[in-house]
């Protein structure tokens, strides 16, 4: 029987495939439905936040920063409550990272401000002496891609039934709604509203001018995203 298999490339390949596919089937598939349930209080991203998430991905922030707090005292002391599966329900892709060259950012919105991020992204070593993080000056000049963020929102709403424009229960018992515009113009307008709130807390005159003129620099979107991480 074994020798028979060794002589037949086709059946041999089938046997190899069965053996290697087995672990994946058992490990991954059955867990799917359960792990994707959001926990109470988890909200989908707004247009501006999602555009900021794209800036985060574009610059591979996840190469150095994790978004996963493990259940150890030293980690919960440093970063806050350990991560729960459902908190990631709207993260496509996940951004856990695999290396902490810099600190975890899972709940950075709880302890850093717009002002802090602005100074830090301009010159990290001036805010944190000894930091080896490079400066991200171009984020103050490049324009955030609101179109793509809106396209992604429409896609996840349609395909994965992400609850935009629906009431979401919060931890304190109240409800919140994340609005999704019904047109691209509407999406731009609502993103700009959010951007104005952030730009008001910023010092960079070019950024303020750009937002006043109706364009949103990448840094504003990124800060909106970082502030939403709680």
């Amino acid at each position, binding site marked *: *029987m*074994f*020798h028979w298999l060794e*002589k*037949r*490339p*086709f059946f041999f390949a089938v046997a190899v495939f069965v*053996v290697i596919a*087995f672990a994946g089937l*058992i490990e991954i598939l*059955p867990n799917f439905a359960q792990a994707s349930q959001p926990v109470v209080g988890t909200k989908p991203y707004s247009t501006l936040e999602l555009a900021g998430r794209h800036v985060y991905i574009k610059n591979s922030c996840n190469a150095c920063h994790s978004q996963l707090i493990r259940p150890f005292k030293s980690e919960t002391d440093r970063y806050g409550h350990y991560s729960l599966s459902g908190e990631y329900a709207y993260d496509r892709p996940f951004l856990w990272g695999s290396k902490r060259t810099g600190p975890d950012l899972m709940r950075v919105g709880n302890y850093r401000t717009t002002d802090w991020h602005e100074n830090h992204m301009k010159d990290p070593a001036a805010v944190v002496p000894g930091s080896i993080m490079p400066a991200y000056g171009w984020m103050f000049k490049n324009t955030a891609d609101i179109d793509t963020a809106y396209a992604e929102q429409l896609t996840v709403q349609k395909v994965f039934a992400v609850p935009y424009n629906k009431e979401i229960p919060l931890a304190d018992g109240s409800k919140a709604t994340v609005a999704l515009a019904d047109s691209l113009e509407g999406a731009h307008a609502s993103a700009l509203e959010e951007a104005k709130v952030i730009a008001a807390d910023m010092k960079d005159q070019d950024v303020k001018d750009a937002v006043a003129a109706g364009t949103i620099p990448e840094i504003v979107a990124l800060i909106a995203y970082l502030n939403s991480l709680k």
Partner: protein
Amino acid sequence: MDIATFQAYGYFFFTAFLVVVLYSYVYHLYSAQKKGTRDYEKYGNIALHDEITDQPIEEISKNDEIKK
């Protein structure tokens, strides 16, 4: 039966099955060699005598078994 139980049974039986297959393969390899029904070690020479003019260790046309 919920999915987790199913998963556990599936895992257990398939693993047990594969372990049995693997061990019977060990038995097959060494008993075939001992009884002389098949010399596995000669296949090691496929790498050594690999010029296109060399005689294949086992010619494909000699045997009527088709390659499929």
